[in-house]
């Protein structure tokens, strides 16, 4: 797994609230049996016209954001389905962090397992980032996971919170299944005490 480094990028503003996983990746793109090919489905209904041609108006298609790695979204980003195809599609398009005032639980979990950093900020900071993206769309901001800081162009900075375990996993590329299995003795012990339905 890739270790997570500092990100420096322009900010793609997509300040809609409640962007659900069906918008992030519509169901018809869920037919893949791999993780890579889902990337083309990212925001497909917004990114493409019905005939399949790109909608140049849509923010992510705009030229200046071609290599941008940070998405700024509205409240409750990622609500809806548990599809992990959502973070796969986002990272498959080069985005490494999403900033919002809040995230849906399952999305946040899924993101952290896929090297996508969900950063929760309070509404004031959200507003200042949005203003920045409007006034200076070319400006870069930097996100440093190690120190949990975001640096803005004019020298401002702010801290963000992240669960220490998730941070450790991102920074060191911890394999979570491997981590669980290191508790094999406890699992085996627990299983002895547990009687429940057996499906055969």
């Amino acid at each position, binding site marked *: 797994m890739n270790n997570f480094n500092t990100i420096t990028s322009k900010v793609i503003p997509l*300040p*809609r*609230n*409640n962007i*659900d996983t*069906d*918008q992030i990746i*519509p*169901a*018809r793109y*869920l*037919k*893949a*049996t*791999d*993780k890579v090919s889902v990337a083309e489905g990212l925001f497909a*209904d917004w990114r493409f016209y*019905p005939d399949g041609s790109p909608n140049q108006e849509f923010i992510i298609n705009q030229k200046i954001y071609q290599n941008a790695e940070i998405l700024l979204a*509205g*409240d*409750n980003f990622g*609500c*809806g*389905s*548990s*599809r*992990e*195809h959502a*973070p796969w599609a986002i990272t498959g398009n080069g985005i490494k962090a999403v900033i919002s005032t*809040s*995230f*849906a*639980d*399952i999305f946040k*979990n*899924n993101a952290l*397992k*896929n090297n996508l950093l969900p950063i929760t900020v309070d509404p004031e900071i959200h507003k200042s980032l949005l203003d920045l993206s409007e006034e200076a769309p070319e400006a870069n901001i930097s996100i440093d996971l190690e120190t949990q800081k975001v640096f803005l162009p004019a020298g401002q900075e702010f801290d963000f919170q992240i*669960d*220490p*375990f998730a941070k450790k996993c991102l920074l060191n590329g911890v394999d*979570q*299944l491997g*981590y*669980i*299995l290191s*508790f094999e003795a*406890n*699992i085996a012990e*627990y*299983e002895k005490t*547990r009687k*429940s*339905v*057996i*499906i*055969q």
Partner: protein
Amino acid sequence: MNIVKPKTLFDKVWERHIVSEEADSPTILYIDLHLIHEVTSPQAFSGLRQREMKVRRPDKTLGVMDHSTPTISLLESDIIDNMSKIQMDQMAINCKEFGIKLYEFGSPDNGIVHVVAPEKGVSQPGMTIVCGDSHTSTHGAFGALAFGIGTSEVEHVLGSQCLLQYKPKSYEVRVDGKLKKGVTAKDIILTVIAKIGTGGGTGHVFEFTGSAIRSLSMEERMTICNMSIEGGARAGMVAPDETTFEYLKGKEFSPKGEEWETAVENWKSLTTDEGAIYDAQLILNAEDIEPMVTYGTNPGMGIQITESIPYLISIADPDSKVSTEKALDYMGISPGKKIMGHPIDVVFLGSCTNSRISDLRQAAEILKDRKVADSVRMLVVPGSQLIKKQAEAEGLDIIFKAAGAEWREAGCSMCLAMNGDQLSPGQYAVSTSNRNFEGRQGKGGRTFLASPLTAAASAIAGKVADARGYL
């Protein structure tokens, strides 16, 4: 004196499943039942193969095919495209290779995962149940802790039967009193979500309590728990009681004989203790609840069927205002207009929210000796093949067909429009499913979520209609 802190139902189920707890790390939680379907599991099996691992407990894993299966027939030739076929074939290969029981496409036991597991008696009180599907919350109706997980976590559970989880907070949703005639479980949960919003329950597990909840059947409780996720909660729970035990008794996988007695004794301890404190609470009066319909593009944008679409001016937060404006624009409806009477093109009666036998019976009662409007296409998609069989034994299929509705095989169908059952751009549907997101039921399609009663009445009227005029 040794005082034991009163616990919630959720606390109890959580604590009984802790395998290990380390400082600064999530709990390792044991999973009693893992449900899988064809869409969110293939990459997890690939992961296992890469690691050269087995499935730890195939005997606690059950597979179905539901999301991309055709409902028009049980013929493979009706599978919508090659990718779906590959995905379904892969599911069969994975289950076979890893020794997992699978109700595959065409099996008389197949159906929507959240319908099949309860009707088979696999979902039981006090269990931890997961599935790579957010509506796993459905199974909480049995007093289980049931929640959706991503594909990485599916791999974790396949490989270890455990998950890394932080304990969510608890949230009591209490509904006291008696529902009025024509008001259903679906209206309760749509009212809850309209009140708290789609993010209102984030970080929490709902426990539904109160006399109105107690008097609901298991199927109705499942409808409510099913949509907990639409209120942002990971899970929803109802403490098990006689209704629960009655439902489970004699089901294929329910305990039998002496084991049944022991199980029921154990399940009876699964209640919230007197004096336990929830982290959040919402109290509703059942008498205040009316039939609900959503008008926007998330399930929180719901109003009572007699109400009008809200004016934007009533929304203070600028982001919400913009989002609502976009939603109304997508829906092609204007503030101030009544939702009732809005013309519709399609009625979808189905999905893991409302496709059980009681839902079909309710709709059939309204449709009996009546006709679906000429301008409306109505699809009736039972939640499982067993429900389909039951409905046919009761003659419900005849009622639906005589009314002009399509009677289908079981599956997710137009709930998420992966299998070819979908709305055309611009079409309006009254749907008994759970999500009205943009394009959810087909690109450009527009969804009004409502109960099976409202759906049936609207099918006849050709527009959003109040079922109370038909009862």
